[in-house]
């Protein structure tokens, strides 16, 4: 497969703060590539540079064979962008929004109308197309936001955390639509901090943290990199301090890492089932009540934890 996107040592700094630290990767035509990382990792800054909104401090990238710094208009025509935050006119209807944005992408006349109808059908809002966007639910607005990015049928679609802050049903609909788009030949760069989404959608995943691309590969390649480790997750009550339990658990032989996220302790270990009894005993000794326990096989969460020492949602 040929590369539709090639990124070479792309960097962006704001004064002394390096938001993106010289990352390199490529995306092949027809794949879904996810940039997985916590909030503030540099995902949106990367998308903003690739979509020509921000000028890179250094490095270069080419999209559809065009430089993002020299051939910006050609790049803009090749890409579609679904921004993280809604970028719509709330006092216009869905149809009016799509008409406006379609014209911004050079569509007009009959082809515009046909394309707007197709997109409205695609996002399931053809019956409510005349209502003002401000009357829509959060999920419906998200769908219009995505629809705008699809209007001109771009070869490469950037989706920047499109499921943030929406209900599970809308989230499911969006994930399914991403898969459909990909089946129909669209290449997708998808950013998220939800491991499950990256696992479900992606052909390949890049893990980004503090502006660095710390790992890249298929899900299988990435999980293999952390070895045959399981993740033991202990859910504790809100009244208890999970840090105390985390410190105690680290003393157990066979525990590679133990990190706290909200009211849970994540333990990386190659022998989860064998350690279980010891962990419960130590929790009892500390007077900490464990509400539930999960044992997960190697996944991207474990990869992130292994690479950074922190949980993905930190």
């Amino acid at each position: 497969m040929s590369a539709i996107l090639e990124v070479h040592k792309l960097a962006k700094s704001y004064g002394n703060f390096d938001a993106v630290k010289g990352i390199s990767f490529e995306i092949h035509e027809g794949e879904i590539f996810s940039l997985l990382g916590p909030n503030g990792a540099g995902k949106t800054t990367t998308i903003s540079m690739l979509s020509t909104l921000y000028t890179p401090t250094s490095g270069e990238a080419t999209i559809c064979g065009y430089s993002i710094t020299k051939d910006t208009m050609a790049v803009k025509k090749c890409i579609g962008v679904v921004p993280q935050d809604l970028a719509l006119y709330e006092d216009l209807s869905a149809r009016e929004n799509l008409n406006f944005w379609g014209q911004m992408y050079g569509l007009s006349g009959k082809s515009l109308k046909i394309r707007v109808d197709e997109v409205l059908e695609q996002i399931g809002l053809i019956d409510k197309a005349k209502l003002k966007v401000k009357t829509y639910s959060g999920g419906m607005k998200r769908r219009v936001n995505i629809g705008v990015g699809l209007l001109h049928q771009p070869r490469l679609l950037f989706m920047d955390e499109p499921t943030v802050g929406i209900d599970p049903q809308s989230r499911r609909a969006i994930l399914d639509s991403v898969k459909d788009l990909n089946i129909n030949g669209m290449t997708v760069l998808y950013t998220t901090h939800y491991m499950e989404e990256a696992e479900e959608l992606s052909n390949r995943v890049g893990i980004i943290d503090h502006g660095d691309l710390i790992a890249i590969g298929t899900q299988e390649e990435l999980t293999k990199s952390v070895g045959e480790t399981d993740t033991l997750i202990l859910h504790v009550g809100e009244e208890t301090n999970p840090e105390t339990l985390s410190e105690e658990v680290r003393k157990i032989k066979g525990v590679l890492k133990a990190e706290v996220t909200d009211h849970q302790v994540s333990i990386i270990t190659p022998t989860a089932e064998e350690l279980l009894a010891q962990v419960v005993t130590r929790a009892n000794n500390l007077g900490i009540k464990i509400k539930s326990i999960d044992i997960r096989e190697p996944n991207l969460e474990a990869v992130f934890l292994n690479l950074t020492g922190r949980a993905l949602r930190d």
Partner: protein
Amino acid sequence: MRKLLIIAFKDVLLIFRDRAALLFMFLAPFALTIGLGLATGSFSGKSNSGILDLPIVIVNEDNGQLGNALVEMVQSDQLADLLEPEFLTDLEIARKMVDDNKTVAVVYIPAGFTNSIIPNDVTSNSTQIIQLELYGNPSSPTGVGIVKNLLEQFISEVEVGRVSGTLAVTQLLESGAIDPSQAMKIGQAVGELQTDTQVGTSSIKLNNVTAAGTEVKFNMLALLAPGMALMFLMYTVSNGGRTLLVEKAGGTLPRMLISPTSSFQILGGKVFGIFLTGLAQLVILILGTTLLFKLDWGDPLAVLVLVAAAALAATGWGILLAAVLKTSGQVSAVGTAIMLIFGILGGSFTNIGIMPNWVQWVSRISPNRWGLDGFTNLAMGGNLANIVIPVIALLIMAAALFLVSVVLFSHRGIGKE
């Protein structure tokens, strides 16, 4: 160009769907015009607010019937709230008062003025008429225009009286009803009667007859309505400038920037949208006041030219605010302040001619000042030629403001980072 227009029309559509903005754009200027109209007695035919109180100086060297009639007219109760006359005997001192910006105009009634119009010998063929002189303050064109209007009304009525008096005496002579020795006495009597009639019936009001013969009623609303319209035009343009920052914060401006649309097209579209909104606002207000208050704004073509120039200059201010300030909240606050300051400076509330020199000088930075000068000229019967200076001033203002804004935007970008 197509995308520029699409962006502009989208902005106009959004503004016209914003009820709060519509209230400010249309209802507020209407309400204030009506309120001030009621306060000034414009609807009842009485003017009692002293909204103008134009300071003028009369130098009467004539002391004949017509000179005295003119003096009585400017001192009449009907004009008491419009004029603040002062009487001097030294023309040079009076002119210096104008030069020093202490008064709006000097009305000089030369010696022999009455006799040149109502000669002692009505059979004389002398056509030399000694003219009144109006020495106006160029920094107060509105005030000078009003005084000029009053003088023209006075002269017009005197002229009608003179011609009819001369005609009557001549016909009496030709018919043999009187002999030449009686003509002089009868002529004087007719002249005196004519003068008495004018003063006695107070027929001179704030009316004028244009050269074309069309009656133009000078209405206080002709000052109030454009004043309010221009003041709220500043609200509209600052609100328009604000939308640029609202779009930046709301993500639609960055989204436009990542579409295959140039910064020039986007900025041009925003500017054109603000201009169109301002233009629409003024046109609607003009049509509304014409229909509701029977207000005559003057020559329609000239009004349209002036409206376009005023909207363009005001748009320059709106876009400059967006270029200088960082948040939409800042633009709202500063825009409101500028709206009020320009309203006061530009003469929306009071006659700028009675303000100190420096205020009058500073007022030139406001589109309100030039716009109001132009509208007043047109309301008093002026045409396109009479508003050349305000229009050029507004266009220069617009060009300068756009230039500064473009330079500022080119330094910081219109929506990036």
